[in-house]
Structures are given as structure tokens and as C-alpha cells.
């Protein structure tokens, strides 16, 4: 692609190089004041350029210089910089190759976000943000946003207008687009969709991610959440498998029972890490801690084999959030509403007890 270094970029470049050797992203430059010559080294070439020829460098060198300018002058923080570099696979491709790819746009996924980076002829980047499921939708068919903080509101309710207390649940609604964000604005929008994910990913990249394991979390609780200290270890295993699966949360669970006691449950494949049990898991853990205090007891039910299988199918449908996918008249599906209502009519007594079997004996019910 054709790239040109602007006057302000050149001025900044001259000033920077005059202060000492510049090395950045494959570019190394030294300035010899006596001869007014720039010794420029890239993976592709070594060139000596006179000071008055700097404004006519070829596209390849212009790419390196504008790339340096963008990353040092247009991005304010190390985290934002690392994120933008990741978006354009900076560690894998040299600058000119990257520019060619960015000319038509380079996309990467961050949870359910598709972020497309493009580069202008002066090296500045523009970022487009949309839902991955809208990847092939015409931009004009999507609701356009420019304020990155709108992302918080977009992410508050799912497509069925249900509240999303867990921002990283895979239930982000579609139909919106941020078509032209700066690096800073992109960072803010991603932060609003998926709070703290970029900074935790950055810490992980640097080998500095601080993980709070379950036992750390237990030890820290106070008040009503003290109760999680009595949750059995095997229940933590079930909780992690139930709540932290990729179908429920897009973070990759890195926390274990403790540093030396890994959980068997899958941590997920997410690009950004989960560094500790979230407040949803802690609140659920408190509930399970209460429930796990109960002992099992033996019940006797009369069910046909298909009715037993039906109960299992109903649990699966609810657990997999598949209830809405069951067609109205698909009575062959065990979790179909008519099938379930039929089962209730047949097997529940007037008090809602399955097969007329009390949940607790009369004596127990009186005790409680």
C-alpha cells in the first residue's frame, strides 16, 4: 500500500532520533549529526539516508516510521499498545507485510467481539467493533455507535431483554456496530463490554497474572459469604464445571482449588483469563453450601422408563438453555411444554408432589 510520512511525524521522528538510537518493532535508526545521515536498519534492508531525503523515503520505510509514530504517539498506555499489537498479529508479521494485510482490514475475536483493524496511509489505525455473529452483515444494517461508553448499555440486556449480570456470558446481543474507533476509544469500548479482560490478559502475557484460587476466596470472605467455607471440595468441582464452562462464561478459568490442587473441570478456551471466582460464583457457592448441608434420602417413585428419561431431558433442556428451541408442537421432544404438562397432570398430586411422595415426611416438615 502507499504510505507517506507526514510533516508532524517527520518532525517527531527527527527529534526522537537526535536524542539517541531508536529501536521499535523491527526498525533501528541511528543519526550521524556530522554528516546529517540516518542509518536505518529493518529486517529487509540497511539504508543510509541524508537528512534532506527523509521526506521521500519509500513506502517500506514510511511504513516503519509511521508505525513507530502511531504506537508511540497515538496510544497512551502499555496495555492499550499490547492489545492493539495483538489485534494485528504484530509478533508474527513484519511491518510492511502487516500494512498490506491491514489495508483491507484484519479481524480478530475477543469473546463475542469482532475487532477489525485498518490502517490509513499515514499509519494511523481505525478500529471497527461488532458482534462476531454480525461478521457478514452490511454495516448499514447495524445500529451505529460512536461513543465507546455506549457499549455498557448494549451489554446490559441480552437479546430477550434479560439482565446480564455476568458481562462475559456468551449472551451479548447482536445488531450494533462501532465503525470508526481510535485505539483509546476501542480500549474503552472493550473495557465496557468485558470489564478488566484486557488488563488481565496483559498481565498474563507478561507472566504477572495474580490468581485468587478458591481457597484464597474462601479465606477472604466475611458476612453472609463466610458460608462458602463449608462448601465441600467436590462441590467446587461441580460448581466450576457448571458455571465456568465456555457455554456460560467466555473467560478462561485459571483459578483452581488451590495452586497445588487443580480442578478437573475444563477451564475453557477463552482468549482472556479468569483470575478468581467471580461474585456470581461466590453467591451461587453460598447457596450450594446451604443445600449441601442436607443428607440424601431414599424416595420411591412410580415412573415409566420414558418418564424417567423425560425428567433427565427436562433438566438438560433447562441447563443448556434449550427450552426456547423446542418447537411448540414437537411433542416427541421430552422437554416439550405439552409433554411436561401432561407429566405433571399424570404424576403430581394436588400439592405438587411427584407421584404423591412427600419431599419431607410430615414429622420433618413440622420440625422445620
Amino acid at each position: 500500500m502507499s504510505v507517506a510520512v507526514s510533516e508532524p511525524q517527520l518532525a517527531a521522528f527527527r527529534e526522537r532520533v537526535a536524542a539517541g538510537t531508536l529501536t521499535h518493532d523491527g526498525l533501528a535508526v541511528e543519526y550521524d549529526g556530522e554528516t546529517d545521515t540516518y542509518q536505518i536498519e529493518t529486517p529487509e534492508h540497511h539504508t543510509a539516508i541524508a537528512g534532506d531525503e527523509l521526506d521521500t523515503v519509500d513506502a517500506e520505510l514510511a511504513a516503519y516510521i509511521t508505525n513507530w509514530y502511531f504506537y508511540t504517539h497515538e496510544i497512551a498506555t502499555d496495555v492499550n499498545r499490547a492489545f492493539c499489537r495483538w489485534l494485528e498479529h504484530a509478533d508474527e508479521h513484519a511491518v510492511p507485510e502487516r500494512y498490506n494485510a491491514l489495508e483491507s482490514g484484519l479481524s480478530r475475536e475477543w469473546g463475542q467481539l469482532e475487532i477489525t483493524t485498518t490502517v490509513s496511509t499515514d499509519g494511523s489505525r481505525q478500529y471497527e467493533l461488532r458482534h462476531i455473529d454480525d461478521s457478514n452483515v452490511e454495516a448499514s444494517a447495524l445500529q451505529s455507535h460512536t461513543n465507546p461508553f455506549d457499549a455498557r448499555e448494549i451489554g446490559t440486556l441480552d437479546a430477550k431483554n434479560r439482565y446480564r449480570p455476568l458481562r462475559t456470558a456468551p449472551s451479548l446481543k447482536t445488531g450494533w456496530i462501532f465503525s470508526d474507533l481510535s485505539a483509546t476509544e476501542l480500549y474503552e469500548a472493550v473495557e465496557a463490554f468485558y470489564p478488566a479482560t484486557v488488563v488481565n490478559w496483559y498481565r498474563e502475557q507478561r507472566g504477572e497474572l495474580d490468581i485468587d484460587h478458591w481457597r484464597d476466596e474462601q479465606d477472604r470472605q466475611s458476612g453472609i459469604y463466610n458460608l462458602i467455607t463449608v462448601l465441600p471440595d467436590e462441590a467446587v468441582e461441580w460448581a466450576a464445571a457448571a458455571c465456568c464452562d465456555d457455554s456460560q462464561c467466555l473467560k478462561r478459568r485459571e483459578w483452581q482449588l488451590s495452586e497445588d490442587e487443580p480442578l478437573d473441570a475444563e477451564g475453557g478456551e477463552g482468549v482472556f483469563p479468569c483470575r478468581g471466582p467471580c461474585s456470581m460464583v461466590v453467591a451461587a457457592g453460598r447457596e450450594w453450601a446451604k443445600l449441601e448441608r442436607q443428607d440424601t434420602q431414599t424416595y420411591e417413585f412410580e415412573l415409566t422408563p420414558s418418564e424417567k428419561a423425560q425428567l433427565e431431558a427436562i433438566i438438560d433442556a433447562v441447563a443448556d438453555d434449550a427450552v426456547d428451541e423446542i418447537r411448540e408442537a414437537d411433542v416427541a421432544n421430552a422437554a416439550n411444554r405439552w409433554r411436561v404438562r401432561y407429566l405433571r397432570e399424570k404424576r403430581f398430586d394436588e400439592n405438587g408432589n411427584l407421584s404423591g411422595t412427600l419431599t419431607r415426611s410430615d414429622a420433618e416438615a413440622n420440625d422445620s
Partner: protein
Amino acid sequence: MQSLVIVAHGSHLNPDSAMPTHTHAETIRETGAFDEVRTGFWKEEPSLREVLRTARGDDMYVVPLFISEGYFTERVIPRELRLEGWDPELWDSEGISADTATLVASDIDKEVHYCGPVGTHEAMTDVLIRRAVSVTGDETVGDGFGFAVVGHGTERNKKSAKAIEYHTERIRETGRFDEVHSLYMDEEPEVDDITDYFDCEDIIVVPLFIADGYHTQEDIPEDMGLTDDYREGYAVPAEVEGHRIWYGGAVGTEKLTADVILERAADAGAEIGDAIARVRQQTNPTEAVVE
């Protein structure tokens, strides 16, 4: 570079809980008084545990959007933010005078200014009065009106009643309203019996709560007899036993609350220029917005 970090409770069940936090954050962002305004939550994301790492300022001001001193401001927030050496004694407060303490947050190895809660700042009195204006639509409201400040009660936090009494007394001292009383949800004087405590025909009722939710939208309107069923809503004013009740809902949703957040940060040393004056003007429901 200055950062403001507003920390609040949030909710797993009710999206309205965090709404005031976000609204006030946006109001403050627009003033440009801080280089960035971040929000963190006990129940939402980013969590209190992770919010500081999302901020990048050299001067960080943490303001709890909570009504009173107590369990959250003295224990949960400092623990989750990892404020090294925190001790409630640093605030040297008996319940309503917490100001600021400067401590290193080990999460980011930087000093942060940890401010007292919004609800006990003296400027909150102005927000309560502003609420009276916005609920009646009358800039001069006062004469012939009673004012009830409603709190949860002391069941869970003894200091919460102190904040209620503090503002009740301050509103009373203005002499603006004919009668001013504190009422509670779960102790006497109870909000259920509101008409027993006022002679005024018109009574403005403002709960000292941060966000609207179960208590302010369901319990209190039903307890006062504004409606038999909160789902059907209620009139403002509503007639109850010969009185007109002007129910204002949670004071924390009043836009002027952003001002109290700014005051807290300014008290702790933040340089915010004329942001307080601008917010006061821009959030006034009876004045034209001045750009």
C-alpha cells in the same frame, strides 16, 4: 494524571442498581475534571477486586457510592481494593465524618485516596432538597410542606441511622420546610405510620438510598399506602389519609449526586476546577441547561 474510581454495590438481579453509578460517572466524565472515571462493583464487573487495575492515573480518588459508613466502606471495600494498613480509625469518624485516608493499594502498588461514603457528606443534604424540587417541580418548594427522610433502620448497620438523622437535622436547620422527620423501614418511627408524624397536608418523602430497587420501589410505596400493589404504580402526589405524599424514590438517582462524588474527591485533594459549580447548574431540573 487524575483518576476517579466510583465504587458501588451493584446487583446480580436488578440492572437499575448500577444505573446511578453509571449516570453520575458520565456526568463527571463530561466535566473533564478527571482524566478518567472508572466504576467498580461488589456484585458486578469490573469487581472491586479488579477495578483499580483498570485505572491508570497517578492520583487516584476512590469514592464509595454508599449511603453510610459501616460494613462495606470499612471492611469490604478496603479489603477488596487491598488497601495496605487500612484501619477504620484512619477516618476518625463516629459515623458521619469519614473524609479520606491515603494508602497504598497493593494491587497496583500505588497510593490511592480512599474517601468517605457519598451519603454522609454534607452536600448530600442539598441533593435531598434538590429531590424535593424535582419531585414537586417547584424551585421554591418548602412553605407548607413536610419532609421525611427515610432510611433502612439500624437492624444491619447502626451507623445508617446516623446518616439519616444527620441530614434530617441539616434540612430542619435550613428552616425551609415546616416539618422535617426521619422515618425508618424496620424500626420506629416507621414509614408505615407517616401520616401520624406530620401535620402538614403535603409531605415530601425521600429515601436515603443509592439506587431504586425492592425497598424504594416496592416496600416503601406499599407501606405508606401509596398503592396496594407496586406493579400498578402510584400517583405523585398520592392521597393518603388526608395528606398528599410526594414520593421521590431513592435520592441517589438524583443527578446532583454527581456533585457529592466530586466534593468527596475535592476534599481528598483532587483538582477539579469549577466542575462542582457546573454540575450543580447542569443537573438543576428547573434551570435551563447551560452548555
